[in-house]
Structure formats: C-alpha cells, structure tokens
C-alpha cells in the first residue's frame, strides 16, 4: 500500500510558550501575540513568513468575536491564505495542527501558526473572598445552579464515578496518576508544581474538590499563551530548530452520554492515525495524553490500547508511566502539574522531547511521540503521531 501523502509532509518548526500560571500583565489577546512572537523567534522566521493563522480561543476570548481575525489585526499580519477560529475544547490543538498540515499539503498555505491563549484567572482580590479562587471553570448554568451543580469538575466526577463502579477503578488508581505525573514535574523547571513533590499519602490527604476528585486529580488553571508553527517538510529542514514531523493524525467524536460509554474518542481516532504513521503502539517512545483529570489519563490509556478496557486504573497503579518506567506518559508533568494550555500542553511537551530538549526529564529514546487531545466531557478527541525522523 502506498504511503499516505500526508505522512511526513509537514513539520512543527517553532514553539512559543509564554510565562504560565498566575500571570496578569496582559490579556488573552496579548498572550496570543507573545506566544506567536516566541514561536517565530524559535523557528527563525519573520512575521511576513506566516500565511496561515489558526486560533483556539480560551474562555476569556468569549466576547472577542472572530478571534483569528482579531489576532491578525493585533499583530499586523497581512495577506493570510488561511484563517480560522476553532473550538473542539481540549481536542483543538491537535486538530489545528492537522488542518494546518492538510492546507500545506494541498498547497493552500506554506507556514501556519496555531495558537491557544487564555486568562481564566483574575488578579488576586484585595481582600479574602469567601467564594473560592475558582476560576471561570466553576460556572453554573441555568437551572442546575439551584442544586449547587457547578463547573466541569462536577461533570467529570459523575462520569468518573461510573467508571469506578463498572470497572473497580479506585481512589488509589487515580492517585497513582497524580503521583506519577508529579514525579515528572519535579524534573521540569517550567512546571508550576516543580517544587511540590507528591506521595500517595499526600494525595489522599489533599482536600476534596468534588468527590471522587481530590485537589490533585484536577488540572491546574493557567493564564498564558502557546503557539506552534507548522510548515512543509522541505522548508522545515532549513530552519533554526530540528523539525518535528507529522507522521499520523486522526479524530474521533463519539457523541452520546460519556457516563454510558466511559470511553474517549481515541477508539475512533487511533486507527487512522497509526495507519497513516505506519507504526504500532510498540513504536511509540513518548506519550503525551490530555489530562484535565487523572481519570482522563486512565480512560485514554485504555482507549489507545496500552491496557484492556477498564484496566487503566491498575495499569497506572503499577507506576510504569513515571520517570524510568516502561511507558513515558506526560513527561513534563502535564496539565495536572506543569501548566494548563488545553491541548497545547501535551503538544508542546512532545515537541520538547522529540527535539531532545527535555533536560533532566529527557526520555532516552525519543524518535516517536503519541499526542492526544480531549474536549468537553470525553466529547471530542484528536490524535497526532509525531517524529523527529522525516520518515
């Protein structure tokens, strides 16, 4: 069978990460501009080289209308041949990179920047507020607020509880994911929780947010921006940094009630992605999975086939996913411990690892990375298979 024409056709050549976390010096638009500037510097490209712009707007973009056009105007980009504001939640980052590579392969654009930014955290209030520091993610909708049903944590908790009931997933299993990723974070100077090692006992002692989720089952919330630049493989070879080639891609959106399926769209997305990449799971060196919750990692490990369905908890509890383990998962600490830029967090860590820039956390063998994105409540899913090798 002939190789898929998209395999290896494009590469990530620039990565820009702004300061992350409790940073308040600009807004969502400003963070996006800063991220693009950093990515251009990283690639050794100029603004004029960009002819495509894809934006994943975080919550703070809600009222800004056509976000990609706002960003184009804010940074004086001219003569774009591709522009879109995309939102599949946490699955957007991988999906943007997919669309960028498809446009490049079709000859519609040559150099596409993909951006996420958000500012869900507000500057600290002058006086202690009784309501928690909960960010924009603690929202209430319509009638549910009368019952005290608030936010994404509670929505995921209802699904996680079903998984625990059906498969025997335990609090220890969830905690094992938090502990494993925190071990990676302590090796990552850019991780927000790098100075806070975590034991399973610490995990159990941490306060409940929405049971069955402790504080450390839930991702961080971060202000900031993150951009990557995608260009054709030929051009990629002549730029400043080692190219990260796109070998495979796929999407999967199951629909229905996640409390029934207890499954992510990885079950749909993985097959086309691995077929295009012409590899199997055994060829993957670095695994960067979307981790809005510890629970999400367990489900995603199952759905890519690292273990059987329902056995993600025991698999995580073997502690094979941390530093030195059999499967290197979320090697920067992920969104649980590093920073929360939706799907851009796993994408960025894959780029760092494949370039060999991982420092103390560098995975020794780093030819191929699997990256997942997940949006909504296991609602949307996207997959990338990336490699430092052209083919």
């Amino acid at each position: 069978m002939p190789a898929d024409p998209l395999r290896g056709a494009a590469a990530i050549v620039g990565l820009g990460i702004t300061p992350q976390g409790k940073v308040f010096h600009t807004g969502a638009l400003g963070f996006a501009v800063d991220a693009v500037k950093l990515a251009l510097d990283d690639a050794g490209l100029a603004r004029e080289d960009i002819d495509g712009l894809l934006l994943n707007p975080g919550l703070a973009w809600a009222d800004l209308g056509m976000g990609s056009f706002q960003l184009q105007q804010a940074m004086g980009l001219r003569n774009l041949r591709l522009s879109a504001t995309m939102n599949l939640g946490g699955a957007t980052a991988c999906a943007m990179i997919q669309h960028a590579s498809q446009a490049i392969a079709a000859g519609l654009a040559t150099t596409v920047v993909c951006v996420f930014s958000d500012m869900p955290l507000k500057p600290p209030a002058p006086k202690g507020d009784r309501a928690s520091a909960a960010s924009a993610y603690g929202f209430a909708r319509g009638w549910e607020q009368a019952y005290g049903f608030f936010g994404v944590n509670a929505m995921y908790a209802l699904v996680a509880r079903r998984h625990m009931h059906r498969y025997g997933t335990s609090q220890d299993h969830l905690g094992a994911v938090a502990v494993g990723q925190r071990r990676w974070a302590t090796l990552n100077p850019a991780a927000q929780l790098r100075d806070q090692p975590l034991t399973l006992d610490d995990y159990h002692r941490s306060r409940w947010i929405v049971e069955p989720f402790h504080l450390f089952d839930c991702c961080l919330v971060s202000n900031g921006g993150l951009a990557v630049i995608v260009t054709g493989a030929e051009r990629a070879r002549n730029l400043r940094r080692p190219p990260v080639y796109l070998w495979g891609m796929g999407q999967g959106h199951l629909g229905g009630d996640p409390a029934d399926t207890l499954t992510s769209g990885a079950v749909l997305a993985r097959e086309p992605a691995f077929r295009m990449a012409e590899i199997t799971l055994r060829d993957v060196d670095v695994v960067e999975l979307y981790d809005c919750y510890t629970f999400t990692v367990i489900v995603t490990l199952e759905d890519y086939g690292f273990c059987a369905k329902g056995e993600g908890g025991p698999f995580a509890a073997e502690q094979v996913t941390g530093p030195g383990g059999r499967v290197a998962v979320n090697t920067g600490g992920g969104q649980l411990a590093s920073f929360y830029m939706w799907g851009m967090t796993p994408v960025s860590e894959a780029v760092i690892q494949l370039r060999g820039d991982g420092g103390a956390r560098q995975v020794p063998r780093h030819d191929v990375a699997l990256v997942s994105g997940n949006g909504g409540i296991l609602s949307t899913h996207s997959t990338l298979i990336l490699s430092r090798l052209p083919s």
Partner: protein
Amino acid sequence: MSAVPKPLPQITPEMAPFWEAARRHELMVQRCRGCGTRRFPARELCSRCLSRDAGWERVSGHGQVFSFAIMHQVYHPAFADAVPYAIVVVELEEGARVLSNLVDCPTADVAIGLPVEVVFEDVAPDVTLPKFRPRRAAA
C-alpha cells in the same frame, strides 16, 4: 444560614412545565411523541428520531442513583454552609435521567444503585425543587 440566598433555577420557556408541575409537587419529564423516549432536561427535538413533537408526562418519582458526586468546593457563597452535599443523577423507573440532590442521606452512604424517591422542597413562594431521598419501605 448563609447570608446569601441560594440561586433559584433560571426557568426557560422550554422547562416551564417541569417547574409548574414541581409547584404542584408532581414530577414530570418530557416525552417524544415520535418514538416515545422520555427525556430530561427539556429539549426542542428528540436526538433519537429528530421529532419536534413532544409532551410532558407525570412519572412515579421512583428510581435509582445512576451516578453521584459529592460537592466539597464552595463555588457559590450560598452553598458555604451546605457542603458537602450530594449531586445525583437519578435513573427513573420510566427511563429518563434527572439531575438533582440527594437529601436525608449521609454523603458516605450515597451509592450507585441506591433506590430513591422524589421529595419536593419549596424554596420560594413560586419555586419548588424536586429532590430525592433514599426510598422508604413500600407502604
């Protein structure tokens, strides 16, 4: 008592029959006239058969806990004295799943499969919240 009152449900035209029934201490869910599927909350059309034709039907208020979450974090100051409290998704005997609170039950005793029955909490002169409690022995 919290100084801040708990928020009342935003009553949309679509959901108005549900809240009117609750005021009468009746539990009603929407039922598709195309395929007979019961659903909650109200929707404009049936995702199964795409019919827009639907009515409201009184249900027993009996069901089982399908899933639950215990809220500990205070997201709204009115719930500061209420935490921890149980959010439940109740699978009614008639089929629809309803999101509500479980009352009269220690949070440690909430479990999937627990048989429950509806109770009505009058929270304002014109607003009643259907909630659930563990089902008592059949009369």
